[in-house]
């Protein structure tokens, strides 16, 4: 379907014709009257003009439809005119909104005779996700430029899928809540592990390596060291993808959601490498859920999920967030699921999410990319508000990793961990 509209380009000609006519009559100047006739002819031509309906055929070629993140991918879109002559044709290719064009232009302005072709060649930088090109937009004008027709030109489906690999981060800050399987997290109970828990009376058969010789030398009584039992954790990486979470900073390349997803990939890798069960969820206008699991197949599934789940979109969603989404996700969580809440904490509801999860018995760790700035009064206020929210979260017992996106996540975790107590 096309839209036809007037460009208003010739509106002044009518005024000019009337002024010339009026002055010519009043001042008895025949030449002025004659010139108004010329202007009238132009105005009449403009009024009667109508932009043609083009017949265009589009072909598009993408050099690599499964690139790695940040790879440069060449795109060539060719438009052929299968109809009559088009004297003023402007074309805009439907580049997916999350893919920046790094070279060339995804638009052109040409005149095409019957059978002629125009090509738009440009390069995009690959970004996480499933990206689909929209049909190109064509704007056609008639010879006088008075009327234009805008339409979407049918094109073959073109997609590009980019799935970043999951790699490991440094130590992941897990609360001591654990599941019943042995793993990497120290629980509050004594058992097999490497972290000291308490001393108990020596029993025959205890390993010599666990005897506390200092205690024996000091008191003359043998005692055996007990350690925290290490259990496998079940962790849900919960991403804040509500409209309020899509905030950016002029000096950063990505928005908060993309940084959170990048951090989440590193956490996922480390947790899986340590033998923990890890799931992924998104809280936004739509929720999404991948139940905790482990192993190579689950790792591949989680990589795909993080990259291509439509709910974890790189650009702000169109729907409205409803708080009932959190209830939906909570209903899927088991009591022993720990939650890592990845959110910029840009509004008070982000704090509410953590509180409600805690009140349901889930240990919560907040990993928050800091997107605040201090150039304007509004930005300084937002920074102060975020600081207070993070304090509220700490006060409620959540572990908080305040992460500047221009530093490695490991650095932020190490800084946060120094202030935590068991």
């Amino acid at each position, binding site marked *: 379907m096309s839209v036809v509209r007037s460009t208003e380009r010739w509106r002044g000609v009518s005024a000019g014709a009337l002024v010339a006519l009026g002055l010519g009559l009043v001042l008895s100047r025949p030449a002025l*009257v004659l010139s108004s006739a010329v202007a*009238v002819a132009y105005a*009449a031509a403009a009024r009667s003009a109508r932009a043609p309906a083009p017949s265009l055929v589009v072909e598009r070629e993408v050099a690599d439809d499964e690139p790695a993140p940040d790879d440069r991918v060449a795109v060539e879109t060719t438009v052929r005119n299968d109809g009559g002559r088009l004297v003023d044709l402007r074309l805009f290719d439907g580049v997916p909104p999350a893919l920046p064009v790094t070279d060339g232009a995804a638009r052109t302005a040409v005149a095409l005779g019957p059978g002629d072709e125009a090509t738009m060649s440009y390069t995009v930088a690959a970004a996480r996700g499933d990206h689909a090109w929209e049909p190109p937009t064509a704007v056609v004008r008639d010879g006088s430029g008075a009327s234009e027709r805008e339409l979407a030109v049918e094109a073959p489906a073109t997609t590009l899928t980019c799935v970043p690999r999951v790699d490991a981060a440094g130590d992941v800050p897990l609360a001591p809540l654990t599941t019943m399987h042995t793993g990497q997290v120290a629980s509050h109970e004594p058992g097999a592990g490497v972290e000291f828990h308490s001393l108990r009376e020596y029993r025959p058969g205890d390993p010599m390596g666990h005897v506390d010789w200092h205690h024996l030398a000091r008191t003359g009584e043998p005692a055996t060291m007990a350690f925290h039992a290490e259990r496998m954790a079940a962790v849900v990486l919960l991403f804040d993808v509500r409209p309020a979470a899509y905030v950016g900073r002029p000096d950063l390349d990505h928005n908060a959601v993309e940084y959170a997803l990048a951090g989440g990939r590193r956490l996922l890798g480390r947790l899986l490498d340590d033998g923990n069960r890890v799931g992924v969820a998104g809280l936004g206008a739509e929720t999404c859920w991948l139940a905790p699991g482990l192993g190579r197949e689950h790792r591949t599934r989680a990589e795909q999920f993080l990259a291509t789940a439509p709910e974890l979109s790189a650009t702000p969603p169109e729907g409205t967030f409803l708080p009932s989404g959190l209830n939906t996700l909570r209903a899927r969580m088991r009591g022993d699921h720990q939650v890592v809440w990845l959110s910029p904490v840009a509004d008070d509801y982000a704090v509410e999410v953590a509180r409600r999860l805690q009140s349901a018995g889930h240990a919560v760790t907040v990993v928050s990319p800091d997107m605040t700035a201090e150039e304007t009064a509004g930005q300084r206020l937002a920074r102060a508000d975020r600081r207070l929210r993070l304090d509220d979260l700490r006060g409620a017992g959540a572990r908080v990793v305040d992460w500047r996106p221009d530093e490695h996540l490991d650095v932020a975790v190490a800084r946060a961990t120094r202030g935590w107590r068991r």
Partner: protein
Amino acid sequence: MSRRRRAALAVGTTAAGVGLALVVRPGLAGGLGVGETAVLVLGALALAYAVLPVGQWRGTRRRAAPGDEPEVVPACDPPGDDVDRLFAAVDRGAIAELEARAKLRRRLEHSAARAVARRDDCSRDAAREALAAGTWTDDPVAAAYFAERQGDVAAALPAGRRLRFHLAPGSPRARAARRVVDEITAITETGGGR
């Protein structure tokens, strides 16, 4: 083209043709019986009617050329952009300024109450009372911003500084609001957290 426009085009073209013919053969004019007065009236009407398209032209909204910039990934607003828009509306003194002022005040009150409650280890209600009483800060302009009686925010300043405050560019209430932001920022930087 509509029927009315076709008719107008026909009339106009015919009139133009007659005019051209009269230029070539002026003698034909005698048969038309058009007096000088009629010519002057027609001329004046044409000049008056010229105002119409000029008025329409000036009243036409500017419209961007069709087609967004396909090369650029839309950027997300930074946190606090909504507050900056309120500041801009208050500074402009636009018709919507009153609503913007009220929204900005509510927003700042929410943040200030939370900051004061955290600093003083008191309830939000107690913090709001401190805001209303102006005891939450040493800055007299910021203190007056939340005062119950919404009068001159610079009333507590010495006369010279009060004059300079009001003469500075921008809305006095917007400048007072910025000082409130500065105070909230100072509270959170120096000891709002644990």
